[in-house]
């Protein structure tokens, strides 16, 4: 049926026209912008004004800065930053999975009467500004804030300075900030799981536990991966969560902070731009994976 509409009277071009404004916009402001990053990374810097002199012509691209930055990334001080970033993101992902999977599972399959209310509660963080949620945490983590007070109730040490610049504060912050983005996609995957397969497992004599580990979990892996990717990708470039929560500690510096520093506070924009490209290259595989799965799902839905 779909084919009938699209081939009638050369309508393909008409649909292309519909997409044209969007495509044009994305080319003008996204593709060109990314190209500008490359032009700056492989360009020069005005020695006096310290502003970038981008090299728009690929034949004039100069890779010395990129070479230097790559060297620092693999052998120099940037290595630590990248490793730390990977560590933070990894730990936060673990947190998201540990918290998010049970919640998503419950919401998808077990919520019953309260499902609507629960869904609203799970969607609510989307409408709350990310920074407001972080602001809320800085309120709680003050030396005389609620977290320490609660610790005091349980006779735990209640004078810890959470905003000190420690890794666990950053990991907690990242987990808290990104877990809603993890739960919803996972929820929609789990909801679409064929319940009959799970029933079949139980009918064949497996215990609830065995059914979960041998039927439900494997079935949910694609959804888990998609949710993980969509959560982890923005986390890698995050630079505001850690600096917001630690008032500037070198011990929690992530790649995003270095990028921001180079681009806004130094006369070496080409270094910052190079770092951006390196970050994109590292995330490339994840990005492609996500795009491929999305396209596949789009095709399946439209068949």
């Amino acid at each position, binding site marked *: 049926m779909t084919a009938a509409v699209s081939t009638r009277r050369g309508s393909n071009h008409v649909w292309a026209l519909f997409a044209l404004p969007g495509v044009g916009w994305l080319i003008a402001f996204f593709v060109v912008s990314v190209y500008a990053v490359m032009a700056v990374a492989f360009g020069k810097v005005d020695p006096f004004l310290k502003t970038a002199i981008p090299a728009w012509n690929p034949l004039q691209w100069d890779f010395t800065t990129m070479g230097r930055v790559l060297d620092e990334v693999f052998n120099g001080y940037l290595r630590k930053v990248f490793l730390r970033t990977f560590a933070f993101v990894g730990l936060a992902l673990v947190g998201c999975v540990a918290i998010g999977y049970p919640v998503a599972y419950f919401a998808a399959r077990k919520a019953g009467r309260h499902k609507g209310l629960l869904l609203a509660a799970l969607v609510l963080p989307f409408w709350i500004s990310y920074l407001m949620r972080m602001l809320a945490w800085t309120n709680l983590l003050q030396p005389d*804030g609620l977290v320490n007070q609660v610790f005091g109730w349980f006779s735990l040490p209640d004078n810890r300075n959470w905003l000190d610049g420690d890794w666990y504060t950053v990991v907690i912050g990242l987990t808290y900030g990104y877990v809603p983005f993890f739960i919803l996609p996972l929820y929609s995957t789990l909801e679409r799981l064929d319940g009959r397969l799970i029933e079949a497992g139980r009918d064949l004599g497996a215990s609830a536990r065995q059914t979960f580990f041998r039927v439900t979990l494997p079935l949910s892996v694609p959804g888990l991966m998609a949710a993980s990717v969509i959560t982890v990708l923005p986390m890698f470039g995050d630079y505001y969560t850690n600096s917001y929560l630690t008032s500037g500690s070198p011990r929690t510096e992530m790649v995003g902070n270095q990028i921001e520093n180079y681009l806004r506070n130094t006369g070496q924009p080409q270094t910052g731009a190079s770092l951006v490209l390196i970050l994109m290259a590292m995330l490339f595989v994840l990005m492609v994976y996500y795009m491929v799965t999305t396209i596949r799902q*789009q095709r399946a839905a439209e068949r």
Partner: protein
Amino acid sequence: MNPFRRRHGNAPVLAMVTWVYVLWSLLPVLIAVRISLNDGRSRSSFQPMSFRWYWGDQTASLLHDESMRVALLNTLKLAGLCMLIATPIGVAMAIGLQRWRGRTSNAANGLMLVPIVTPEIVFGVALFLVFSQMYTGLPDGLTRQLLGHVTFTISFVVVIVRGRLAAIGTQYEEAARDLGASRLQAIRLVLLPLLSPAIFASVMVVFATSVDDFVISSFLSTGASTETVPIKIYSGARAGSTPALNALATVMLLLTLTAVAISTIILKSIQRRGGDDPGVTGGLAGLSG
């Protein structure tokens, strides 16, 4: 109750974990709102309540602090304009991409998906560089921020609308065409109304995304007059912050929730006429396919 649940029962532990999560997720925000009502300067403990930071304090409250009002207005301006620009472009693009056949279409589809997976800092840096090196004719920080927001949000619109498009199918339009309507009429009179839940959902998502945006606004900001609420909150953590910041965030939250509530009501009234629809949640979940 379906047989499965009857046989295996509810899961009390999971239920508890889930509701504890909901509390953990939302309680800090409620506390932040409560702190905005503090009478004193404390940002960590509860003090007797008053509206000091909303309008009472003569210099630092939301009403009297010029920079806060500017930030609020900027955020609303940006979000409003972004909605108006990104939604039509995105809806058209969704319709076009879904029906356009060919390799170019696939490429365009891929292009549309890339912004969703791109970390915001890449966006921020790229836009910052392109506006300072290439599109230098745009001096106003707000204009640049708007362009950045639209670029960032078009893809969300497309994904949400496409999800709905796939569910609708083409039979209604074809019926209209058979009855003599032109292609454009069919789209305008038949398809768009059917799409309205998704359009509403994407309008809300664009609004929320633009309001929440920090990285792009921050990189493209040119000074105190182009600050937005997220920028204000962020810099407020570091510069003499009072509960006025909480008040600012609360006001923004209330505005957003009101907008969501209104659009949900409109949505529901449209839905009563239309078929089943996953609504905003489905739209959001559709972001991941």
